[in-house]
């Protein structure tokens, strides 16, 4: 029987950091249990399990619309493991970043102190696609603008976590974190039983708590606002609404009169206090933004400005996850928090400086070029994998619109064994941990979405670019159980319940099966 890990390439010089193997054949300590459980399985065994997994996802409608077609979001059967110590670094780094960005947003939509102090040039902020003057004067009830964030992290060639980009508008993917875990426990129970994994299922409760905390009234009505069933992340919107026990509304279900937002129900209009919106800023309110939008509700933003409704995440957050602003975040952390960044950025070049631009244009084939307002991996050009024609093209576009692009060093993302065919092969991954801010505390869900680029050598992991995902296990290092499971030992022994009532037809099975044999 062929070993699953046979021919698994590890440790080539200058290659990506492999998370399972430091050197061929010897797994890193965190992965020892997983390695030992997987090794006796044959590739075919694993393939069968993987097919069960894929089937389960399809049946439950856990899909991602890709080019208009609903497809299952491929879940790889080999989980990714993060040790407790590593996780503490990630957690601290994410929390720090969210705090700094919250302070930055409050500042740019308020006094603008950071601009006056010249930490961030005013032109960078005001030329951002997502800087909305309409959001000025909207003061969040509990000071929170980034209720939910997803900071994309990668591990570089040395295994250190770095921030690739921030997502503080409407980060998606948390539903896959929850569903991946559920599905994996059904399909690979033996691995689960051997590892102490921190649970992720309380995310909806966490989110609901934060949304309620952001409400202008006590005992608020919370809704999730979705663009509708054709949105690529509709599955997630429905899951979150279901698990929070709140209504999933579309723009046409809402009505806003006199700065009061209400939803149309069979019992008349019912007031809405908090809107967890999954609709982009531009489509949210036809009065303020695109007048042709049918996805939002006219008057929402004014209602928020009047403090009658909370929109989460806040409008205008996009200025904080603009990719050019990303280059300023380490300085923002020092400026607002007087701390050193816990997670470094990837080395990035600002192309609005003519000298830097010249330097970059001369070595396009060794860099990664990203449009500043692109999301979902759209428009990214990886120099080393691009044709000469593509490079020339992107060079021209940069010269036309230097503010619209950034250049980054090409980081070889870390790899994790991934089932390809019936063999395991290294594939590049990233990590998106989700943080929820309820105004008092920023909690990071222990886990997060690991996306994996399935084509060999590919570095873009976005689900909209045909990527898959992995279940992400944050291992707990002791402490009490975060679950509280029936622990009969604590209770006085209760007399065993009686047997279920017996009825006719008992014992029929054995006799019948025997007759079948004859």
């Amino acid at each position, binding site marked *: 029987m062929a070993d699953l890990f046979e021919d698994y390439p590890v440790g080539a010089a200058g290659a990506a950091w492999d998370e399972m193997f430091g050197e061929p054949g010897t797994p890193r300590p965190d992965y020892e249990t997983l390695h030992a459980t997987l090794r006796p399985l044959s590739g075919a065994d694993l393939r*069968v399990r993987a097919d069960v997994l894929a089937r389960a996802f399809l049946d439950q409608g856990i899909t991602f619309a890709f080019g208009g077609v609903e497809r299952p979001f491929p879940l790889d059967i080999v989980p990714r493991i993060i040790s407790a110590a590593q996780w503490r670094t990630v957690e601290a780094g994410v929390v720090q970043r969210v705090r700094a960005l919250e302070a930055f947003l409050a500042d740019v939509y308020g006094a603008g102190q950071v601009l006056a102090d010249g930490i961030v040039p005013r032109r960078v902020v005001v030329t951002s696609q997502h800087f909305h003057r309409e959001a000025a004067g909207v003061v969040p009830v509990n000071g929170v603008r980034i209720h939910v964030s997803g900071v994309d992290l990668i591990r570089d060639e040395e295994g250190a976590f770095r921030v690739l980009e921030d997502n503080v508008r409407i980060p998606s993917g948390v539903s896959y974190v929850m569903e991946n875990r559920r599905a994996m426990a*059904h399909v690979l129970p033996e691995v689960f039983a051997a590892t102490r994994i921190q649970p992720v299922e309380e995310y909806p409760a966490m989110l609901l708590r934060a949304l309620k905390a952001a409400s202008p009234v006590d005992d608020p009505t919370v809704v999730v606002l979705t663009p509708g069933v054709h949105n690529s992340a509709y599955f997630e919107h429905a899951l979150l609404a279901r698990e929070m026990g709140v209504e999933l509304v579309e723009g046409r279900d809402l009505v806003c009169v006199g700065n009061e937002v209400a939803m149309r129900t069979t019992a008349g209009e019912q007031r809405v206090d908090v809107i967890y919106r999954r609709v982009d800023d531009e489509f949210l309110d036809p009065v303020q933004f695109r007048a042709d939008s049918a996805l939002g509700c006219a008057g929402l933003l004014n209602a928020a400005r009047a403090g009658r409704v909370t929109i989460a995440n806040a409008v205008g957050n996009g200025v904080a996850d603009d990719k050019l602003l990303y280059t300023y975040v380490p300085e923002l952390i020092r400026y607002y928090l007087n701390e050193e960044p816990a997670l470094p950025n990837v080395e990035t070049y600002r192309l609005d400086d003519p000298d830097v631009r010249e330097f970059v244009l001369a070595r396009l084939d060794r860099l990664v070029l990203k449009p500043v307002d692109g999301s979902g991996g759209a428009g990214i050009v990886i120099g080393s994998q691009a044709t000469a024609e593509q490079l020339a093209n992107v060079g021209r576009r940069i010269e036309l619109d230097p503010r619209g692009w950034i250049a980054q060093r090409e980081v070889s993302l870390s790899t994790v064994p991934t089932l390809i065919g019936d063999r395991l092969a290294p594939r590049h991954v990233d990590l998106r941990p989700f943080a929820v801010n309820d105004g008092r505390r920023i909690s990071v869900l222990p886990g997060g979405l690991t996306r994996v680029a399935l084509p060999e050598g590919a570095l873009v992991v976005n689900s909209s670019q045909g990527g898959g995902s992995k279940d992400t296990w944050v291992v707990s290092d002791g402490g009490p159980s975060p*679950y509280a499971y029936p622990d009969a030992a604590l209770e006085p022994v209760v007399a065993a319940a009686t047997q279920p009532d017996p009825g006719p037809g008992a014992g029929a*099975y*054995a006799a019948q099966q025997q007759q079948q044999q004859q």
Partner: protein
Amino acid sequence: MLSRIAESLYWIGRYVERAEDTARILDVHLHRMLADPWTDEEVACRSLLSVMGAATDRLDAVGVTGVVERLGLDTTDTGSVLGALAAARENARGSRETVSAEMWECLNTTWLGLADARDRIDRRGVHPFFQWVRERCCVLAGLADTTMSRDEGWLFLVLGRSIERVDMTARLLSTHTRAGGTIPSWLTLLRSCGAWETYLRTYRGSLSDRHAAEFLLLDRLFPRSVLAALITAETCLAELEPDPGRVGVGTEAQRVLGRARTELAYKSPEELLTSLPQVLAGLERTCSAVNEAVSARYFRQTAAVAWAEAVA
């Protein structure tokens, strides 16, 4: 209707419900044990077995496999999923002239599918198997609903189903009272009943002991709550008595059920929480008492005559 047929229908109702509920309980609890490696597997399994009324006095260690074996695959015991489904099919076989052909076919197909149950569990894990069981039970419920006329036979089937539901929900809740009442385990319970999302919508996402207990015991609109099942059973019994007479209620079964229902319905939620173990034990006793009363009233009204060997 023949007593024998009535009894068969009553037991088809009970067995199918038992199979479905046991599959639900096992599925969710086993998943929970795996997802939470802090669990003491032995203790949790023993607690589950004892709540389901399976003997655990044997000395050997009990693990997940043992639980699946005992509550899932034991063919000699009608308390297991397999045993209950086989017994339901056996009852349908004896009453094929009243059970619709489609229902019989459904039960029989299910029964045939049980032959390789163990193999399937080995190959693909317990979850797909229990899911299949749940689906088959739902198919039967749907066929009964659409192909049976609402006569006595239907009433006995629904009566059996409702009584079993009370019993099973009470047992399920007992797993919680043994846990010492903590919130995440309510999640397990609500999921076992398929009530998780309905519950969240009803209470707008708030998770508390009081609400969860209220929902599973007292909700009038959720069909798996104890109160809803008691009310359904009572309605069936009332309809089975063509002449209610003038004095009180006519039958012992109605008296037992009515007492249990009022006892539950008129308790305040606080009282209910503090006396949960007693309430649940009481419900289990009620089910047995109703079972006896129904048998005595409808199935064994006339004592069977037994022929004895001639005494020389």
